[in-house]
């Protein structure tokens, strides 16, 4: 479906960019370099806290960036994206606890489940207009949350999946070892970000931007808007689910909070914090929010109060995310430098 859609998009635009291939090669190199740097980090800093922090960043970063594919690129304000995060965590955790299949199999199976669920929910939701889309996705999120809470015999109800998720070694990788888990999370993060960037830069990605800016015009030039929206909804769900799997591996369990609407709220907040106009904005936002959360909870009991004031600062004071701000500032500086030179 994606390729088909991409072809349509390519026809709608000027055809694929001639330098697309060299650009992709460069991006592969950058991704590899980032991965190597992240993987070598434990050799330099032996702090376990840092590794934990990066693992959590990987989970939240994948989740938030995938949400940005919907919010920033397609203009679909989903208030229920967190359901796929929860679905990933619960699907993977249950698969490992109940069936004992190897980790890669459980990983693939969880993504398959997410694919099917996202296809059904997306097919219902994406035809709705923005505010209704937001609320129906929220309703589905809460539906999944209440199912998890009420299906005690399977999910453990409000206690969550307890007793730990078994993490048997595979291909010499032992995910119960923190270092192995760290490297695996980094790999998933880098691969995920790379793939999402490819999607965003592809003709299909430009089709999405067009739908965001003017859906009627897009449909006039022959783009099946419903289908394009559904495709990105499902793709984004898969990446969010991967984030959930990392989280489940990290805490060795799954809790109803992973599927609660606040996860979606946090995702949107992360997007705003980092900025939705740049690809890396949500990743920056995820790191910022986690740092903020960690320091604020250490300093005060009134964690919401401080967080709220910070949000207000961004929403009313800056009126944009941090990366938007940086990008604009950089462009302005370059312009004025150009004028002077």
């Amino acid at each position, binding site marked *: 479906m994606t390729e088909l859609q991409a072809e349509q998009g390519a026809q709608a635009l000027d055809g694929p960019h001639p330098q697309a291939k060299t650009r992709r090669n460069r991006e592969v190199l950058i991704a590899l370099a980032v991965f190597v740097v992240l993987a070598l980090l434990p050799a330099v800093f032996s702090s376990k806290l840092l590794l934990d922090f990066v693992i959590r960043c990987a989970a939240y970063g994948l989740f938030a960036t995938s949400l940005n594919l919907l919010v920033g690129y397609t203009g679909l304000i989903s208030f229920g994206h967190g359901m796929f995060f929860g679905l990933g965590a619960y699907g993977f955790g249950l698969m490992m606890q109940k069936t004992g299949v190897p980790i890669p199999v459980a990983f693939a199976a969880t993504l398959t489940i997410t694919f099917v669920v996202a296809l059904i929910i997306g097919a219902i939701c994406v035809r709705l207009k923005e505010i209704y889309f937001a*609320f129906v996705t929220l309703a*589905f999120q809460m539906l999944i949350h209440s199912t998890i809470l009420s299906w005690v015999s399977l999910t453990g109800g409000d206690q969550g999946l307890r007793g730990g998720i078994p993490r048997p070694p595979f291909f010499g990788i032992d995910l119960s070892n923190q270092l192995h888990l760290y490297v695996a999370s980094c790999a998933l993060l880098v691969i995920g970000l790379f793939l999402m960037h490819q999607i965003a830069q592809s003709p299909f990605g430009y089709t999405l931007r067009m739908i965001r800016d003017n859906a009627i015009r897009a449909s006039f030039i022959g783009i099946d808007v419903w289908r394009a929206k559904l495709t990105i909804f499902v793709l984004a769900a898969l990446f969010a689910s991967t984030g959930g799997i990392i989280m489940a591996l990290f805490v060795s369990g799954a809790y109803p909070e992973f599927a609660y609407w606040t996860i979606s709220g946090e995702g949107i907040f992360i997007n705003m914090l980092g900025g939705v106009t740049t690809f890396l904005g949500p990743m920056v936002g995820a790191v910022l929010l986690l740092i903020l959360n960690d320091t604020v909870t250490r300093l005060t009991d009134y964690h919401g109060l401080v967080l709220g004031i910070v949000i207000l600062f961004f929403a009313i004071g800056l009126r944009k995310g941090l990366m938007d701000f940086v990008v604009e500032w950089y462009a302005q500086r370059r312009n004025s430098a150009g004028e002077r030179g």
Partner: protein
Amino acid sequence: MTEAGKPPPSRCEISLARPHSGAPQWMLPLDLDALTGCLASSACLVTQTTSGLIIGMLLFLVAVGLTLIFGVLKVVNFSHGAFYMFGAYFAMTAYQISGSFALAMLCGAAGTAVLGLIFERVFMSRVYGADVLMQLLVCYAFVLIFDDVVRMVWGPEFKSMGMPAAFQVAPLFIAGGVVPPYYLLLIGVALAAAVVLGLGLARTRIGKVIRAAAHNPGMVSALGINTGLIYGGVFALGGMLAGLAGALAAPVRSLTPGMGFSVLIESFIVTVIGGMGSILGALIGALLIGLIRSFGSLGFPLFTEGLMYLFMVIVLVSRPTGLFGKEVA
């Protein structure tokens, strides 16, 4: 979060206690015996309907403010639950100081009206031009801030206002069902609010101006009417109704920071089911959700909330703008 909407324990639940059924292990909890048993007994029917009605009426008061604010300002007030919470806390404090129930209600409603006005004029009015996300974010920030303010001022523990002495009388028995007199007052006040609001919007000059502002704010301000004042007024009115709901709920619910949240989510469901911007829709939606809650808690004790969301999904899929929503809200 299940706390706020839980119907009070009814007698029939005890009388209908049934032997443990050997349901398969991975089944969703389902108790159809209790539900059909209740539907067959008039006493249980009356009790459950009343409890559904009071849940519905409280939800209506919150949801109607939400729908009004959306209709006029085109803003989804995500922090509306906080007004419900403040209404309850204001009422409790006023009652503890003065001992007067009427004064407590007044304080709850007036306090949140002032709060709504300030909130709109100082903060929300700054993000009207911005996109929906910014507005949601400002509201989200205030959800967090208000909850912590309540925690600071009144403490994090559960509080209770207690039933005023005037209502500590024997419950009424209607067709065998137990109906506390306070419930009747609550339903009456909410219905009165609905009628006054409906007539006020339809018949009075101010109502006309508000409807005109919802339709075309540019024209209204060109005619020399201060739209900022109307916006602030509508927000204050919405806040007041939510505060009144909180004050009315204070004697029958326990008070806790974050109590506004479940009410908020439910009133969203109500407005979305009824159609954003429609007052009649809010009333019908609220009653439906109230009844689903009270009867659903018998048949699906753990899945009551899921039932509401399911209902919302069904309504939206069949009628994307809600039961009474217009195509262009």
